[in-house]
């Protein structure tokens, strides 16, 4: 059996700002799904999701569900915040690096290249917010 993850208190997560280009992304978070966008013309995945592909300028961009697995590219524990939190960039298995927070972790043992997986938290709106936690070892 694995050790229970250390639980640090977390701040309330504000309602995300949503627009016509990102409605589908935020709707999917209500079912704990992390969506990415790729381009049907050039085949490249991009982050953050856009209507127009930043690689080839095509409008044929499509949503797909991410694996939710990734590795920490870098992180910084924001110790001076009222409720300290971990700011991080996580490189997803799909190749893009995204801004996030790491939760359910011991601040002192986090490492660059550590395996992490997506987890969702309720926001002050209807949507959920994707964050990441260390991948369980069991």
């Amino acid at each position, binding site marked *: 059996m694995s050790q229970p993850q250390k639980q640090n208190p977390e701040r309330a997560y504000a309602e995300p700002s949503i627009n016509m280009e990102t409605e589908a992304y935020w709707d999917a978070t209500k079912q704990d799904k992390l969506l990415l966008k790729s381009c049907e013309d050039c085949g490249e995945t*991009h982050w*953050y999701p856009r209507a127009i592909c930043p690689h080839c300028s095509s409008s044929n961009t499509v949503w797909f569900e991410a694996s939710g697995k990734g590795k920490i*590219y870098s992180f910084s524990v*924001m110790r001076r*915040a009222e409720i300290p939190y971990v700011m991080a960039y996580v490189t997803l298995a799909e190749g893009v690096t*995204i801004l996030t927070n790491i939760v359910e972790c011991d601040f002192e043992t986090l490492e660059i290249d550590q395996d992490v997986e997506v987890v969702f938290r309720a926001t002050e709106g209807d949507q959920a917010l994707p*964050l990441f936690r260390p991948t369980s070892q069991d």
Partner: protein
Amino acid sequence: MSRSCKVYIAGVFEHPTRKAVDKTIAQLHAEVAIGALKDAGLTKSDVDGYFCDGVAPGLGGMSMAEYMGLDLTYTDSTETGGSSYLVHVGHAMAAIAAGKCKVALITLAGRPRSEGVKSLAARDYGNDLPERGFEMPYAPVITNMYGMAAKRHMHEFGTTSEQLAWIKVAASHHAQHNENAMLRNVVTVEDVVNSPVISDPLHRLDCCVISDGGGALVVVSPEIAKSLGDRCVKLLGQGEAIKHLNSGRFDLTHTAAVKSGPIAFAEAGVTPADIDYASIYDSFTITVLETIEDLGFCAKGEGGKFVSDGNLISGTGKLPFNTDGGGLCNNHPGNRGGMTKVIEAVRQLRGEAHAKVQVPDCTLALAHGTGGSIAQRTGAATLIMGRNDA
């Protein structure tokens, strides 16, 4: 390719205030403009070009032009954060070379200290910002974003907190001689690494000060420079660039200086080894470390060793930097340090820096500005200047 028409900086002024509770931002803009024009030996009726950042009061430069009573035929309000003013110098060089204006005034003013701006508050640029929903909920703050850059640099190159601390130590050695500097105490590596951690691995003393104030520059055509005498400083080269998150494929160990630097060096026809003095943007110690690597003063990854050998200290090091104490000790007016970087470089080339930090026979100087966040969207601008006879 070198511009055939050489353009000069004729006047500079750094506002002495560090906390301006009794002055408006418009008033500070006007005070620095008056100071720089006086330093140049010109008056406001000589000014036909005006440059300011995107946060100066009003739409572009129009309200400030009206407030100061300027009669303009050229204006530019390019906004790239703290690097804006070095971008403005480059744009003034081009405008003057193209005959669009002859005397360009560039001003900066801000009062975040009086207004109680909190360094821990997240920046928010509004609802139309396309990346907003994917960043703001995670509480990105300038300190934790630069903290991630430092953490990654340490991971890849073995850079240590003690090495980063040397950058603050060097700045404090210089600031002790600057009577206007906010922090004049000489600090040690131990002082820096024992100061409270703000966001790993950055300590309080890895961070710049928050100050009110401002500064101004007057950039002029060669004909006007000739009439003003030898305090004019010659602009030899300028480069600017932007780096962003590139659709999710990026690194945190380089800044946009890797592009702006080579453009400036090529235009000036000089190399990093030729530079006698450098003003390097220092919002945080890590900003300096990555920038000196990117500009070619040492190889990528060797910045830690370069700074911990004492190379940034005037009088002993190979690359005397920020001899006014920089943003780490002197001031960071409006949370934008690019302006004061240019001003101290001009002082060095004129031989008007404090005697204790003046670089002997300083003939070539570099000033570098960094804007935005090096861990998100960042601007860079590099300026190479020579003594009047260079």
